[in-house]
């Protein structure tokens, strides 16, 4: 049993009344008002609720509501975070309702969806929330029954006395409210978990299949106007003059104007990335009418910075790969020396294009800004950051601004950058009316904040004894280099050099599901495969040798991975996939990567049909510590594999004079159902280590395992994404 001090995050356990000063400031809450409590079969609503702490309330009949603190973007934290609270509270999951918590930085920390960190960083505070509430209920029961606390135990929401007497949580909830918050609480042993580790269905599943309004785009309010934007057609441009006479006379149109969403003099936060700060705004009574009038606008644009073209920046990136960096990002040993003496050098350059996020729900936000306060609601991964920027721009203090976190139709990093929320607020303030800002797919896909285009050159020095003795990795990318200096195989090779170059770009870039890893895993794991082949070694054995070296006699001290856990997933996938027992006509490729604190290894089984690959099966081994919800975890991994494979094969943004060449799904290809693998099987390392996230780690290895399987099939190394350009489209099963 782990005893833990509750002041770890004590402000979360303040009584709700005590937190009123900085809590929910405005009466209206869209989520609460239009979404009735879940209709779990057979659950009767209580007559009265008692707030125990910021994470939960208990009804007088024992029904429990748990607030999920973080934004839900499809990573399923709205199910898994409350599971952790419910576990330590010791209640029956079927008696639990889940609600999205409002943004409240007094009560909660890190209300953010990003970096696959919600579970990892929430683990302790969620457990303490449940455990301290349980302790308060026990103390209340001890008072009521006039028995010592240590004679009481709990099970599924019932407190039991050694005499056999029982009392339900609901019966003592009203008294528990006035019990002092315990100074320390005992946490369960993982072996005693009853909810954590059990496959648990999505808490919003029923609402989603019924088409209930859950998303930002579904928001409707009395008197609400629809606003849409027109941003410049090319990066590096802004509006110069507008002729809106035709648009203004069209049905339902209320207003046309320009805005500067982030005015000069306001220091941007990292989350304020936005290539199009100046926008034309058109407002009307419904979406279709505004869409039509948008087309009738005649706008003259002016160039403010040099437009970029794909061939141009690709050449510039290639040139950078031939240039030494002023300062290496990492240097071990004497790489130049071993390369001079090397018996053989293997060299390979990998490249990948810009990618759009393409969340299925396009950018949108609701705002109602008045002189007294502002209500915002919509899909945002960084509500706390958005509120700060909105506060600075519209001149209201943060405690007068509420942000409701709607369920989000995908995030993938796109909604870390909340310019659309700010735009909605600026537009609402100007109109003095409630507004829903809606981006069309075209507005969204051409807006930027892309995964940058990257290139990386790998060079391996092999000595006369057939050993890998040196590695040089030089990366270049738009606005950032992709290479992580201290990731594997750093630490496993004596002579190691990492160099980074970035090319400034007015095509805006941002985090995209597993940033940088989404490219580096493919380059690195393909290159290691090629080196293994050159050394005549089995690709898994070769990786394990490197990891063994990193474990027993590491080079350098900054290696940011645990070689034993890394090797663990490779060994697990070797065993589970029956690696080495190849069937006729089947071609296999392996890949393993560590990012966002989780380890993932994958084997792809590919067969060729009419000279085209068919992905028959993907084997996936994962070490994310304790698996909170195995059903959700598998879903994330399957999705990551499909998403990773699809983007590696099919997707790209290209540009002509700053103008995106793709703007919707007819010219930007996303993977389709028949192109996804026939089967995916996941295996988890069972080690009892505190959990880490899975929203991102499943994605990076997929493209490499596929490419390595393709090499086994065809003898051709795929290096330039999207691979479809190398005629490697998947044949449907």
């Amino acid at each position, binding site marked *: 049993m782990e005893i833990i001090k509750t002041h770890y995050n004590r402000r979360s356990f303040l009584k709700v009344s005590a937190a009123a000063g900085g809590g929910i400031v405005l009466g209206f809450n869209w989520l609460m008002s239009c979404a009735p409590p879940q209709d779990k079969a057979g659950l009767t609503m209580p007559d009265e609720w008692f707030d125990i702490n910021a994470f939960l309330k208990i009804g007088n009949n024992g029904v429990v509501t748990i607030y999920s603190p973080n934004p839900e973007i499809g990573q399923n934290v709205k199910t898994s975070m409350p599971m952790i609270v419910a576990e330590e509270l010791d209640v029956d999951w079927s008696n639990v309702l889940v609600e999205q918590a409002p943004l409240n930085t007094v009560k909660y920390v890190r209300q953010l969806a990003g970096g696959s960190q919600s579970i990892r960083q929430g683990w302790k505070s969620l457990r303490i929330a449940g455990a301290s509430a349980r302790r308060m209920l026990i103390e209340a029961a001890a008072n009521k029954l006039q028995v010592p606390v240590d004679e009481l135990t709990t099970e599924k929401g019932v407190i039991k006395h050694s005499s056999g007497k029982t009392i339900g949580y609901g019966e003592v909830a009203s008294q528990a409210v006035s019990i002092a918050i315990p100074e320390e609480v005992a946490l369960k042993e993982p072996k005693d978990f009853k909810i954590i580790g059990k496959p648990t269905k999505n808490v919003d*599943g029923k609402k989603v299949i019924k088409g209930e309004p859950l998303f930002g785009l579904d928001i409707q309010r009395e008197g609400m106007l629809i606003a849409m934007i027109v941003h410049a057609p090319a990066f590096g441009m802004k509006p110069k003059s507008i002729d809106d006479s035709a648009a203004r006379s069209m049905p339902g149109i209320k207003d046309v104007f320009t805005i500067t969403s982030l005015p000069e003099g306001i220091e941007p936060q990292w989350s304020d990335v936005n290539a199009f700060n100046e926008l034309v705004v058109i407002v009307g009574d419904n979406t*279709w*009418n505004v869409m039509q009038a948008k087309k009738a606008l005649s706008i003259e644009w002016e160039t403010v910075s040099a437009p970029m073209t794909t061939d141009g920046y690709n050449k510039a990136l290639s040139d950078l790969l031939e240039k030494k960096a002023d300062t290496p990002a990492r240097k071990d040993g004497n790489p130049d020396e071993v390369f001079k003496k090397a018996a053989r050098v293997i060299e390979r350059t990998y490249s990948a294009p810009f990618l759009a996020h393409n969340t299925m729900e396009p950018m949108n936000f609701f705002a109602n800004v008045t002189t007294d306060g502002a209500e915002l609601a919509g899909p945002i991964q960084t509500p706390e950051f958005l509120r700060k920027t909105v506060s600075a721009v519209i001149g209201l203090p943060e405690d007068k601004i509420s942000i409701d976190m709607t369920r989000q*139709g995908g995030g993938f990093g796109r909604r870390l950058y909340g310019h659309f929320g700010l735009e909605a607020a600026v537009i609402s303030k100007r109109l003095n009316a409630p507004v829903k800002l809606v981006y069309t797919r075209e507005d969204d896909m051409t807006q930027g904040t892309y995964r940058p285009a990257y290139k990386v050159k790998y060079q391996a020095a092999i000595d006369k004894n057939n050993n890998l003795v040196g590695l040089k990795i030089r990366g270049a990318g738009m606005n950032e280099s992709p290479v992580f200096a201290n990731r594997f195989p750093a630490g496993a090779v004596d002579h190691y050099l990492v160099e980074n170059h970035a090319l400034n770009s007015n095509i805006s870039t941002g985090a995209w599901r597993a940033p940088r890893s989404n490219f580096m895993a493919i380059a690195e794991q393909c290159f290691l495969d090629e080196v293994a082949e050159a050394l005549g070694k089995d690709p898994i054995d070769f990786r394990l040798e490197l990891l063994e070296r990193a474990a027993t006699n590491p080079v350098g001290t900054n290696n940011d991975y645990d070689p034993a856990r890394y090797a663990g997933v490779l060994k697990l996938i070797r065993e589970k996939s029956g690696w080495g027992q190849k069937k006729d006509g089947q071609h296999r490729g392996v890949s393993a990567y560590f990012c966002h604190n989780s380890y993932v290894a994958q084997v792809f089984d590919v067969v060729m049909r009419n000279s085209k690959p068919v992905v028959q099966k993907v084997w996936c081994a994962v070490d994310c510590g304790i698996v909170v919800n195995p059903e959700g975890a598998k879903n994330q991994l399957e999705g990551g594999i499909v998403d990773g494979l699809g983007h590696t094969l099919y997707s790209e943004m290209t540009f002509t004079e700053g103008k995106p060449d793709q703007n919707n799904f007819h010219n930007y290809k996303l993977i389709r159902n028949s192109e996804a693998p026939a089967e995916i099987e996941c295996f988890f390392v069972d080690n009892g280590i505190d959990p880490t996230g899975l929203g991102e780690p499943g994605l990076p290895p997929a493209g490499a395992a596929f490419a390595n399987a393709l090499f086994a099939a065809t003898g051709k190394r795929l290096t330039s994404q999207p691979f479809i350009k190398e005629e490697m489209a998947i044949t449907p099963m």
Partner: protein
Amino acid sequence: MATFNLKINKKKYSVEADPNMPVLWVLRDLLGLTGTKYGCGIAQCGACTVHLNGDAVRSCSLPVSAVGNGEVVTIEGLSENGDHPVQKAWEEVDVMQCGYCQAGQIMSAAALLDQNQNPTDEDIFNAMNGNICRCGTYLRVREAVKKAATIK
């Protein structure tokens, strides 16, 4: 502007709309039926799929004037309590991640199974390839379609 008398989810609605307004926006903005989703506006992603006389159609590209006396069914009208076999299968398989595309996926699957009780893999691909899921839930979509086929 013109008046249209529509049959949606077995109810009659009268709406004033631009004849070119797609059914998607009639449903969402004029009738408040927001279960049908906007994804691309050009019939490429399937998020807006509804049934017109039993066929799966992309409501973003179907002008309201083309509906005539046709029967429209949206996700809200697929069943009273979310217990259509496809909905049950979707819940059972726990298909969704973000959930945004799922109404369209479910409507495509329901139309398929209405017309073909025992679809082959190829039938499923043909019916479901028009529905994009960026979360990548395709394997679960297939599994749920097959499960729904067994639920009466």
